[in-house]
């Protein structure tokens, strides 16, 4: 547990007036306030530090105690007792306000040690507020999102069973009401916001609900046409290839793409691109025949 320089946190000198403390706090609060920096944990942490510094430096009694003991905060209580016994210390440094609740507060160990529990926050009233929203990342494979399924997650040591709808997109966030932090002063609980991070474990590329893939096509099927078997997300299908199909030709398989989010039985499309594979290691007979074909084509 380290000493925290509250003056440094607010960027002010030790001789700063109450007005300067307030101005510095307001400036930093406007910069790091969680409502202005959603999902930014670094800003949230900074805001807590700024809040804590203001809590101490804006209160003349706390500031006096902080200034007096500073880095010797570990022995603050012993110093006080000694002073009181000697009758030199007139004003009691009782932990006034320590019993007041401010559930939105989240103080450092240093603060707790020096001043006790939470104090009345900036609002200074027992207003009921909704609890903090919790954020969590859930990593999933793309193949797991082809069908809607249920999953049990452990968030902050608590098990929560959620439904993961098919067709969720990468970095999509879903809100689960009432699974966040406790409300302040009896206010409602916050929500849990889960961000989905998807890893593609399939040979398909995905853009929204459409899937893309390439299919190898041999020279003879491309030239003469035929039937091939291709992989889709939910199995194989047979496909007719017309004669004289060019390399790079795209084919759309309707409703063979990815499920649409929260639209049951609706799917995107699958786009296949033919990649022509030329034969290698030709036999002398094949070479002869290709030369013949070449002559026919060029005469």
């Amino acid at each position, binding site marked *: 547990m380290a000493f925290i320089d509250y003056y440094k946190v607010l960027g002010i000198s030790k001789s700063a007036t109450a007005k300067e403390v307030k101005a510095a706090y*307001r400036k930093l*609060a*406007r910069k790091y*306030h969680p*409502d*202005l920096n*959603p999902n930014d944990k670094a800003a949230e942490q900074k805001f807590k530090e700024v809040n804590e510094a203001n809590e101490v430096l804006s209160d003349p009694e706390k500031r006096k105690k902080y200034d007096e003991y500073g880095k010797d905060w570990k022995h603050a209580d012993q110093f006080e007792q000694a002073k009181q016994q000697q009758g030199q210390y007139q004003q009691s440094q009782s932990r006034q306000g320590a019993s007041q609740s401010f559930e939105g507060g989240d103080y450092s160990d240093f603060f707790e040690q020096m001043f006790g529990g939470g104090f009345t926050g*900036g*609002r200074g*009233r027992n*207003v*009921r*507020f*909704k609890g903090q929203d919790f954020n969590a990342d859930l990593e999933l494979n793309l193949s797991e999102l082809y069908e809607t399924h249920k999953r049990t997650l452990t968030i902050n040591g608590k098990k929560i069973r959620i439904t993961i709808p098919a067709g969720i*997109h*990468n*970095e*999509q966030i879903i809100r689960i009401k009432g699974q966040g932090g406790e409300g302040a002063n009896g206010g409602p609980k916050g929500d849990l916001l889960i961000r989905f991070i998807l890893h*593609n474990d399939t040979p398909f*590329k*995905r*853009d*929204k609900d459409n899937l*893309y893939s390439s299919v190898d096509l041999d020279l003879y099927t491309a030239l003469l046409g035929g039937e091939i078997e291709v992989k889709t997300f939910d199995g194989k299908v047979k496909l007719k290839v017309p004669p004289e199909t060019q390399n790079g030709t795209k084919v759309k398989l309707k409703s063979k793409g990815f499920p649409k989010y929260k639209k049951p039985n609706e799917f995107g499309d699958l786009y296949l691109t033919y990649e022509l594979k030329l034969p290698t290691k030709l036999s002398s007979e094949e070479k002869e025949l290709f030369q013949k074909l070449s002559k026919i084509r060029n005469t």
Partner: protein
Amino acid sequence: MKTLEFIPIDDLCSHYEIETSFFTQLSNLGVLEIKTVQSVHCIHHEKIPEVEKIIRLHQDLDLNFEGIDTVLNLLEKIERLQEELVKTKNRLRIYEE
């Protein structure tokens, strides 16, 4: 309209310990929509998180109503841009995979 879906402004004022004028000024600026249900001025319950955010901005940061309106508009814009960014990143993944 279901009455349960709407919370009377008077209840919100006593709950959050704020004046009625807080809501009327926000309504006049077009920040919050006040509905009248059976002659009672109300706020839709789904707007409560936004109301709380406005109260926090007002009390924690000392912002006036015009400032709050500006902040909310900018936050909305940031949210839209972030959504666009995610969509664009997802499209880019097609070429990176």
